[in-house]
């Protein structure tokens, strides 16, 4: 029956089959190349493998900044139906302890890739690795960790989201820290999981190098705490503290307030993030007198015992009136410095030829950058003799009409007290690779000889006098001879020199016979007190007292370093919880009491290093007081000191590492 209709259906079937065969031939034969290329493109990928960023360590190898492997989880909503979204939300809610609705909302929020969780730790990845839902994938996402929060924030600097150094050492040494990125030829499945790696066509990344600072973490901590304490007490606007080794220009600590938290740098203002110890200049005031005095003595234009008429506090010169706060009829040269007499200084400076004076100031490093290895330095302001007015030399002799950075001041003082040698200040002393092998060591750079050693010795003695019987008595320290010079300068404001706003500074050194530390403290616009001797000197004293207690090597050799003797110092110890610094540094009070690295350090048993990157493992081992010996690269698979055993410092822990497939996966993308 129905032959014609059967034929009609048959015809229809034949047409359909022909269309189908034609289409198949089109796709599989004529467009085969096109689709193969398309398949290749989505399956084979050249992945950029980011090199791990190097560590920043202090002078004793303590880690101040490191990079942590973290993982961000994404979901492709196009590949998820409602049921899968629901499962995914419950899994994430269980793993991260957040409300299920929170994840559901994220999954409903976009068509395409959505980020479910940013920067989760490795253990979360392990928990989630067994869950296979098409459309869920993750990628390695590194975080820069500052284990001591805001400590040395201005030195360390910070990185942006892509871990590029933006400020501080992170910026200055960015190309060392970054390392060389590698790439991988990878075959990956639909959710981006690499399935196999073509090693022949891959290049392993070279991890960034470690930057070892000259910073002494203990000094840094003490300086920050005491500077903060002093700033709070004096109600100043801001403050700077610098500690330097005068013998070679090593910077041991730099602290600025206000400060910021490198991790959350974006919530702070520019002014908080600025390293004002090198980016801002100030008129130093009386601390400049030591420099002028050194020039005069070096030229042989005055003798220590020579008596100068100091006019009982008021002296007119070329229409300007110079006054002394402490009035004296007459003072000898030494006393002029001890009592910080502007009039005495003016009279002495008059003996010095303008060009000579200028040359000395240049030789001490003023008016040009110190070329310290930190970004953003300014050269300061130094008038050339052609531009001097009649009173310029006089004002400059006691620190006006000249603007310097705090770092320039400390550098000049180092030369003043170390026998007359000007060193280039520096903050990085060593670069090592990821296995802690030294790549390069930075040697101190002697710039020039500025004054004769005996003049240096003389000035040093004068400055000891400042602390013993002069304006700097507040800086006196138990058991150690210290020297120094106070400085109080009126701040230049729109209405000329302010009668209300001062910069109070003190710059001191110890021990006097063989200075190992020179330290500058500047407090800008203090409200309680205005003199360097009353505002800045006590900060110096408190900080130095604690540093001397913490570091017995500072003490001069003639002081008996016996335990019983040494205990005397303990009563000067101030509570050093570090809380102040953090509160100041962290406006959101995100106090993270458990510094991840410290947690490890405080342990007395060996932690399990399995799965750590070489870099992390080496830094943990070194913090435990052990030596490390590394074999291979990648992730730790073996440690010679088993986890859980008691640590005996000084022993060597051997670790073996390997790139296993898992670690490759986690490192990809």
């Amino acid at each position, binding site marked *: 029956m129905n032959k014609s*209709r059967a034929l009609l259906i048959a015809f229809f079937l034949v047409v359909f089959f022909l269309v189908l065969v034609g289409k198949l031939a089109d*796709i599989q034969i004529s467009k085969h190349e096109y689709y193969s290329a398309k398949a290749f493109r989505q399956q084979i990928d050249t992945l950029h493998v980011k090199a791990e960023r190097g560590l920043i360590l202090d002078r004793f190898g303590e880690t101040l900044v490191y990079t942590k492997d973290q993982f961000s989880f994404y979901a492709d909503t196009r590949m998820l139906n409602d049921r899968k979204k629901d499962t995914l939300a419950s899994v994430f809610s269980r793993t991260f302890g957040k409300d299920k609705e929170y994840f559901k909302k994220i999954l409903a929020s976009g068509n395409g890739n959505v980020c479910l969780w940013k920067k989760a730790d490795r253990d979360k990845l392990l928990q989630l690795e067994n869950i296979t839902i098409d459309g869920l994938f993750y990628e390695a996402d590194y975080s820069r960790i500052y284990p001591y929060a805001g400590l040395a924030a201005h030195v360390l600097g910070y990185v942006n989201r892509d871990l590029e150094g933006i400020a501080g050492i992170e910026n200055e040494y960015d190309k060392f820290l970054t390392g060389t990125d590698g790439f991988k030829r990878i075959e990956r499945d639909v959710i981006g999981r690499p399935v196999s790696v073509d090693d022949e066509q891959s290049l392993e990344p070279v991890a960034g190098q470690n930057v070892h600072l000259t910073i002494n973490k203990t000094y840094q901590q003490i300086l920050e705490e005491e500077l903060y304490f002093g700033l709070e007490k004096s109600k100043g606007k801001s403050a700077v503290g610098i500690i330097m080794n005068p013998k070679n220009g090593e910077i041991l600590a730099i602290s600025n307030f206000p400060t910021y938290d490198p991790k959350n740098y974006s919530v702070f203002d520019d002014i908080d993030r600025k390293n004002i110890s090198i980016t801002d200049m100030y008129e130093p005031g009386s601390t400049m007198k030591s420099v002028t005095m050194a020039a005069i003595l070096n030229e042989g234009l005055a003798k220590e015992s020579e008596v100068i008429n100091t006019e009982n506090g008021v002296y007119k010169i070329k229409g300007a009136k110079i006054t002394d706060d402490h009035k004296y009829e007459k003072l000898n040269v030494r006393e002029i410095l001890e009592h910080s007499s502007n009039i005495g200084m003016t009279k002495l400076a008059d003996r010095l030829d303008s060009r000579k004076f200028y040359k000395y100031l240049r030789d001490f490093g003023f008016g040009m950058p110190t070329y310290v290895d930190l970004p953003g330095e300014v050269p300061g302001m130094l008038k050339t003799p052609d531009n001097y007015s009649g009173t310029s030399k006089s004002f400059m002799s006691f620190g006006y009409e000249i603007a310097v950075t705090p770092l320039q001041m400390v550098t000049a003082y180092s030369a003043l007290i170390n026998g007359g040698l000007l060193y280039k200040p520096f903050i990085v002393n060593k670069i090592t690779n990821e296995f802690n092998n030294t790549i390069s060591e930075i040697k101190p750079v002697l710039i020039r000889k500025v004054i004769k050693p005996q003049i240096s010795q003389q000035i040093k003695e004068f400055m000891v006098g400042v602390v013993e019987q002069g304006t700097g008595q507040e800086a006196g320290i138990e058991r150690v001879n210290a020297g120094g010079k106070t400085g109080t300068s009126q701040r230049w404001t729109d209405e000329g020199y302010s009668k209300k706003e001062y910069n109070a500074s003190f710059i001191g050194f110890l021990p006097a016979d063989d200075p190992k530390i020179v330290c500058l403290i500047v407090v800008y616009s203090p409200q309680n007190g205005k003199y360097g001797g009353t505002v800045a000197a006590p900060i110096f004293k408190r900080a130095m007292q604690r540093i001397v207690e913490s570091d017995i090597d500072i003490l001069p050799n003639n002081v008996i370093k016996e335990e019983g003797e040494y205990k005397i110092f303990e009563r000067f110890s101030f509570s050093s919880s570090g809380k102040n610094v953090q509160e100041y540094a962290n406006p959101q009070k995100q106090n993270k009491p458990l510094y991840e690295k410290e947690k490890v350090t405080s342990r007395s048993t060996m932690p399990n290093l399995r799965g750590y990157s070489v870099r992390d493992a080496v830094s943990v081992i070194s913090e435990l007081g052990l030596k490390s010996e590394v074999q291979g690269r990648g992730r730790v698979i073996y440690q010679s000191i088993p986890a859980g055993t008691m640590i005996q410092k000084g022993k060597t822990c051997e670790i073996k590492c390997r790139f296993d497939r898992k670690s490759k996966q986690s490192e990809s993308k």
Partner: protein
Amino acid sequence: MKIDYKIQDKFDFGLFLPVLSLIIIGLLAIYSSTVNHPTAIGNFERQLSWTFISILVFFIVYFLPQQTFRYAAIFSYALSIFFLIVVLIMGKTVYGAKSWLAFGPFGFQPSEFAKIGVILFMAYWFTKSERNINNPLEIGYALTIGFLPVLLILLEPDMGTAIVYIILTLAMIFWSGISIFGMFVVVSPGVAAFASLFGLHVFIIALVFVVILLFIFKRNLYTNATVFVLNLAAGYFFDYAFNMLKPHQQSRITSFIDPSSDPLGAGYNALQAKVAIGSGGFWGKGFMEGNQTQLRFIPEQWTDFIYCVIGEEFGFLGSIIVVILFGIVLVKILNYASISKSKSNSLILIGILAVLFSHFAINIGMNVGITPVIGLPLPFLSYGGSSLLMNMVLIGITMNIYKNRKLHT
């Protein structure tokens, strides 16, 4: 009456072997796409057990007495409608459609098995008494029988299966001997409805064609007006129904009409399927070697996209073999239908042909990108117990009718 007792005459290996080959090719493809897939472990083993069950059921159906299909017609249709209602009330939602009825660990899709009910009952209804199928009332009855399940299935909503039922119903009405004008009246509203999807202009052009054809048929004004209004109403209703669809279903239709509109959404699967098939080339990449498959670029590939596993791993050669095997099966069924001496059996066979062909055409069509992505399994190859079992029942009925073809004169 001469009866040939040779086994060849009773059991058509020419139909059975192609079907068996398709099942085996399907098993290979399921194995390749699931054995390394973390969420589909065990699918191959399950499908293998279903294969044995289905072949067993096939033989049971094959040996059933001929009359069973007539006797069972009313009952199976009523049962089908019953389950289609039950599934709407207490069914489980799978892939967005409330289509799964679970009994403890077991379950099935009523919409799969209802095909048998509809085929048997429509064949029974057309041949129960002498009918003038060109009578509008009779057409109305026939459409009601076929479209009642369509309505229930659309409520699940499972558009793909509903389309199969529509094709099934139209094919059987066509085969029952309806006049060309009658077919025109039945089909034109559907065409008008489809045209409305492409916008007002296309819809108006379709209506103009309807009017021209009405002039050619030269019917009276009353009939013409009725048909025209039917077309108009179909267009409006379809537009309304389209807006009732779930967004993902809408986007599947629109992305087919304009593939560039949503290249990463509904178009994703279609594109990935094409990439898989196209990258297979002439010879294919070899069994278990298809990286598009092994890397899981196509979600749930073992169900609706099984054909691209074959296309990728067995190439143009494998794809063509599958198409040829289907061609043999479909042409054989059409041949049986046209030589069958019983009108009822003939109608049953056309129903079976319609079901198998629509599944085949829509599934392979969406794999190679000539039809929209509508979730329909490929008969005999796709993973799924209900589907395989039902298709083997249909083949069982086909071969049963073939076995008994000489009983009626």
